[in-house]
């Protein structure tokens, strides 16, 4: 992976090496990074330069402007005269794959008069210094690359382990995004999962990643369509990325490298992996990330499947409510939470009146339509924090966390009225509702039993009514 080598170099140690080289060469040397910012200081005390810059580092704006203009136009090497009249030789550092920065070489303090002979001396010294510096930097770069590749490979290894060890979707998403931010210093990393004809951002990390979470992008959006039209990753510009919902408020530099990997398995599209990095990953980095993306796709596909199966196993197919099996686990959690935080919990047991007669007369399909409608009505009468469950055929249990007995009775009456007033096909539908509020001596079974008994009392007293458990 390409990286700005100068960012990982210790300036202090580099300066020591540069100063020694400078003494041997009897020439002043200093380095700028790939962005044109000063990296090291002057190795020799050039009085004029030190006076202008008030020290050994280039800080004077005229000098900085001169260097940046020079770097922008520089091919490999140039002999120039700076605005203060000093002759200098500028070299571009790095190789064809990686641009590392710029090296400036000037002669020692006695630079005037600058004749042809001095120019030849400067050229020769600068060339020798360039070869030495570039070789040292290349060696360091190689060492850096090996270190980084080890990090990358470690992470790829861990992701591959995920396929057999972790099936929780949240953990898989966290591990993928965390690893990429850590390894590649990503400013933004996100994973979108395919939900029907959309990609929904399931996890986003980075300084403003939280703004992206939950955003949905249509598969037919031109950018997304392009991502999935090829196996290779798509390189985007910042402007292209900003056309996607939720990205516009994020700070994405136009110099960043933006890569979107389509995540596929044999079963089709799983989602996409996006990464925004401050510097180019290079061809090797992109290839490694492709391997990573392939593993991530399989891990995400597994985790998504397990998550869907778990969801289906606890959901009633007809109404979308929890099923009886899930009720037990949910009640345990809610009662523990209530005991920990000391808030009330009430539950309602709802039984539709004479529903067997409805089924027998109008058929089970008509009965199913009624059950779906009843579920919708119940849902519209409770809060999103309340938990609805289909207990049996026409029986429902509603858990009301944080609700005392008075308020639970109000909710029950609201459901009763809504059912009574809804124009169901064929005939009116009513319900009997038993309400019970958690007591100190209650267990899950006793609480459920009391609400069931209250529901039975409501039936016994004439149906279409609410009965409060004692």
């Amino acid at each position: 992976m390409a990286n700005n080598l100068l960012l990982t170099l210790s300036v202090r140690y580099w300066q020591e090496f540069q100063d020694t080289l400078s003494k041997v060469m009897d020439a002043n040397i200093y380095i700028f990074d790939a962005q044109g910012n000063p990296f090291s200081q002057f190795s020799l005390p050039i009085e004029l330069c030190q006076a202008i810059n008030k020290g050994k580092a280039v800080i004077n704006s005229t000098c900085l402007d001169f260097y940046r203009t020079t770097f922008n136009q520089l091919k490999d090497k140039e002999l120039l005269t700076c605005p203060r009249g000093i002759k200098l030789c500028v070299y571009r550092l790095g190789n064809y794959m990686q641009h590392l920065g710029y090296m400036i070489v000037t002669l020692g303090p006695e630079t005037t008069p600058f004749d042809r002979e001095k120019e030849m001396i400067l050229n020769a010294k600068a060339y020798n210094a360039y070869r030495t510096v570039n070789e040292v930097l290349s060696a360091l770069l190689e060492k850096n690359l090996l270190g980084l590749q080890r990090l990358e490979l470690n992470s790829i290894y861990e992701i591959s382990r995920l396929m057999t060890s972790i099936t929780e979707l949240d953990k898989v998403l966290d591990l993928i995004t965390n690893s990429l931010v850590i390894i590649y210093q990503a400013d933004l990393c996100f994973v979108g999962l395919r939900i029907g004809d959309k990609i929904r951002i399931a996890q986003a990390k980075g300084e403003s990643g939280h703004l992206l979470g939950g955003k949905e992008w249509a598969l037919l959006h031109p950018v997304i369509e392009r991502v999935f039209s090829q196996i290779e990753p798509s390189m985007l510009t910042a402007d292209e990325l900003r056309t996607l919902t939720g990205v516009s408020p994020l700070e994405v530099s136009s110099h960043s490298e933006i890569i979107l990997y389509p995540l596929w398995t044999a079963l089709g599209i799983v989602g996409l992996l996006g990464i925004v990095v401050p510097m180019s990953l290079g061809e090797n980095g992109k290839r490694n990330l492709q391997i990573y993306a392939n593993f991530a796709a399989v891990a995400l596909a597994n985790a998504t499947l397990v998550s869907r199966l778990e969801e289906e196993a606890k959901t009633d197919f007809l109404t979308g409510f929890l099923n009886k099996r899930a009720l037990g686990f949910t009640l345990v959690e809610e009662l523990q939470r209530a005991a920990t935080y000391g808030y009330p919990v009430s539950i309602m047991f709802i039984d539709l009146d004479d529903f067997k007669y409805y089924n027998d007369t109008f058929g089970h399909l008509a009965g199913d339509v009624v059950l779906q409608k009843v579920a919708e009505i119940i849902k519209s009468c409770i809060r999103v924090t309340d938990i609805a469950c289909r207990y049996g055929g026409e029986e429902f249990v509603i858990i009301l966390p944080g609700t005392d007995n008075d308020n639970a009775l109000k909710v029950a009456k609201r459901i009763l009225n809504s059912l009574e007033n809804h124009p169901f096909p064929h005939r009116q539908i009513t319900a009997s509702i038993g309400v019970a509020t958690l007591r100190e001596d209650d267990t899950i079974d006793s609480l459920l039993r009391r609400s069931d008994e209250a529901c039975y009392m409501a039936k016994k007293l004439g149906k279409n009514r609410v009965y409060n458990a004692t």
Partner: protein
Amino acid sequence: MGEVTKDVIVRYETLLKEMWSESAKYLGILSTNLLVERVIWELSQEYPAIQLLKYGPEGISCTQILTSVEKGFNDLEEMFMKFITRYVSILAKLLGHERAEEIRKKIITEFGGAF
């Protein structure tokens, strides 16, 4: 130098252990160790002693730095400070600035402004 240096190492070890376990709560052990590995790698050229920092599923330890203290490492305090600064800056990207700041403040409180 010995005793003073050892005190510095022990103080920073406590600090690093706290940082490691707080991070592991939010990131998980695997990501936390990857983060440690990344920062060690970044600083290893400037401070070779940082490579003696050991980490694993059990946490982070300065034992090897402590036992090698007679080698006369320079700038140990500077090394630990740079490690923490770099660590927290990446942590901010992973957890958001607010939570990273929470962790930083918690550490400052517990270590009486040492960091």
